[in-house]
């Protein structure tokens, strides 16, 4: 077996902080009394509710759907009564239409939830339909509708599936635990996706700081033709789609392009295992593994949480706050979204709930750029972050565009390494948004 480690150019080494939860087995979360299920938990068209206030619903029942292709349905994660359909804050910081369901505590499963049979017997179209109907959207955090990714246009043939088990975000261990505890679901999901794509090469990329996961996955895929484990160097953002493709295949996704342009599809481990679970049990995406961690959480855990459970309920099960929280984050510390309240629901893209204490949350005071070039070395896209940031602050978006601000993947590596503590990524994000908006206008 090859001992070569795959990696990419640039990147940073934040402390992984994973020991808090990496050895803590996944635990079923306490059943929530009330869930708030957003009708939009994915990139694309929001769903229309299929139920009305007062209706009773069961676990796994479809409660929202859209006719648009770029959309996936949502399902109830409890059985009970629909109390309200209302606007509610969701973890991306915006407000969305949400279905508030009061659980009856019975967790009665809906009739539509039935095992889907074996992958071998399903057709490509059936697999795609199961994935869409199962409400699948990328669970690594980006929540791109999975069936859309798996339906590339005819002129973009796909030949490689990459399963992303890098989990390069500090603190997060959800994918790690899934690989350790549910490797057979990962394998089932891999086979299903390979069938849907019609490819016969699949890689499972795992950072080498998870040797146990590499070992288990290697054992699991043994004898499976075309599927192999690719050990990756520990470096952030190894799990970025374009970085992991480059690391494993050497292919370079063109600027502004999607992985399909180089014949690749990347799916996160959590997504793949959930697809495996949908095929095995028929239960759509109503539950996910969430790493609850950080210095201000009493007992950090990996919890199997029902979608719609509030952050507050989840944190309470982990013994509550250890000290006054300074920052509450949906996702990891590098790319996660800071929340202003713990009254937001866990959604399909919630890979982690991170609670930092006051001291860690303190924003550093920026000083002059000393032109040390650390941001340039750190950038996995080979941008010059200090220049783009400077032009952005001057509101010179044309110059920022010339320096390829729109290619920024917002990994935060530049800000992480900046000795002057300048908000590099934070400002480049502003430029990127502005540039993309302008391009849209021109079109």
């Amino acid at each position, binding site marked *: 077996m090859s001992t070569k480690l795959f990696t990419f*150019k640039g990147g940073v080494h*934040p*402390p992984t902080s994973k020991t808090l939860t990496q050895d803590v087995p996944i635990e079923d979360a306490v059943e929530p009394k009330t869930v708030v299920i957003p009708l939009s938990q994915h990139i694309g068209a929001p769903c229309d509710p299929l139920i009305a206030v007062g209706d009773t619903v069961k676990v796994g029942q479809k409660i929202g759907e859209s006719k648009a292709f770029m959309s996936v349905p949502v399902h109830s994660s409890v059985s009970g009564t629909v109390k309200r359909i209302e606007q509610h804050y969701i973890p991306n910081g915006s407000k969305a239409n949400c279905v508030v369901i009061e659980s009856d505590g019975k967790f009665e499963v809906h009739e539509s939830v039935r095992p889907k049979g074996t992958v071998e017997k399903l057709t490509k179209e059936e697999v795609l339909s199961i994935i869409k109907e199962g409400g699948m959207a990328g669970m690594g955090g980006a929540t791109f509708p999975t069936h859309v990714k798996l339906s590339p246009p005819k002129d973009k043939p796909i030949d490689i599936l990459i399963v992303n088990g890098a989990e390069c975000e500090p603190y997060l261990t959800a994918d790690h635990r899934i690989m350790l505890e549910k490797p057979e679901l990962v394998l089932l999901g891999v086979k299903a996706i390979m069938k849907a794509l019609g490819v016969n090469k699949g890689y499972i990329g795992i950072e080498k700081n998870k040797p146990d996961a590499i070992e288990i996955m290697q054992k699991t895929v043994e004898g499976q033709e075309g599927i192999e484990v690719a050990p990756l160097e520990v470096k952030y953002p190894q799990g970025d789609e*374009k970085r992991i493709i*480059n690391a494993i295949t050497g292919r*370079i996704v*063109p*600027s*502004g392009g999607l992985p399909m342009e180089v014949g690749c599809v990347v799916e996160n481990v959590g997504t793949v295992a959930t697809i495996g679970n949908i095929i095995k049990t028929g239960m759509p995406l109503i539950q996910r593994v969430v790493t609850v961690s950080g210095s201000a959480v009493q007992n950090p855990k990996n919890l199997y949480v029902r979608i719609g459970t509030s952050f507050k309920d989840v944190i309470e099960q982990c013994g509550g*706050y250890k000290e*006054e929280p*300074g*920052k*509450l984050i949906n996702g990891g*510390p*590098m*790319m996660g*979204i*800071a*929340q*202003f*309240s*713990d*009254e937001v629901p866990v959604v399909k893209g919630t890979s982690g709930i991170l609670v930092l204490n006051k001291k*860690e*949350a*303190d*924003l*550093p005071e920026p*000083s*002059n750029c*000393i*032109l*040390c*070039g650390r941001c*340039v070395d750190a950038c996995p*896209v*080979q*941008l*010059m972050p*200090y220049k783009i940031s400077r032009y952005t602050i001057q509101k010179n978006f044309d110059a920022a*565009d010339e*320096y*390829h601000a729109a*290619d920024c993947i*917002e990994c*935060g*590596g530049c*800000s*992480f*390494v900046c*000795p*002057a*503590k300048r*908000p590099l*990524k*934070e400002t480049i*994000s502003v430029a990127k948004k502005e540039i993309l908006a302008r*391009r849209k206008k*021109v079109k």
Partner: protein
Amino acid sequence: MDNKLIASSSPHIRNDETTQKLMLDVIIALLPALVASIFYFGTKSIILVVCSVAAAVITEYACEKFMGRPVTVTDLSAVVTGMLLAFNLPSTAPWWIAVAGSVFAIAIVKQVFGGLGFNFLNPALAARAFIMASWSSHIASGFIDPATDAVSSATPLTMIKTGAAGQLPSIADMLMGNIPGVIGETSAILLILGGIYLIYRGTIKWIIPVVYIGTVAVIALVTDGASLLLYHIFGGGLMLGAFFMATDYATSPVTDKGKVIFAVGAGILTMLIRKMGGYPEGVSYSILLMNILTPMIDKYVQPKVFGVAGGKKNEK
């Protein structure tokens, strides 16, 4: 608790490196050479360093107060400038020259252009040039020879320049610093030690020192032959310049390729001045000239952006 949560943009963690820590590393790296200078040149050397550093820090504080900018003396960059400037003076230089140089370095070269990171010339080197232009008699002659404690006007490079190569000290003395010269440049071995420390700590990259010294070595070998090679490398300000001056963040290119161009250019200019110019030594002027080219290098030498064909902008 809700309204007390900080909801800022990601990333939510930073590494613990700070400007102050980087500058402190440079100061630590300069300490061995400082100790050697006291050993060779006595208390005159420490007086110059103290005057120079104090003047630099006070000037920085005063300028920032006057211009209504945040006071940043705690970032230690003024201390580094003060030390480097003093290192460029002979032990016979009067204290007021150190003070005048520091005031010029901080007020004119650094603060007028916007403070740390905005200066386009290395402040210490620009101040050295200012002193050379203003009071050259005070600093270009009158080097103390530590071996005899007598005033000598000839550094090893002057001897080469004037064709007095026969009087050159031994290589061992060159390495240890037992030779006439400005206070910080004489002990090549301790400067290299400091430079290795900086490279090991990741404070500076190896590219500029190695390529700079390498370029000088190749040209020296070709023009003066093997017998004078080591004198060209260990003599004069090359070690001090290559490890501590040419690596100044603000005035050297940020990209690796740019650093190579910068270092090769500095090496060629240094040897050009040594061989054909009016001065025996060319390190400081060559670095200053390359400082001026740095913004242009940074404009034209950019990393190839991932996924962008030929490094050109994508037409949309």
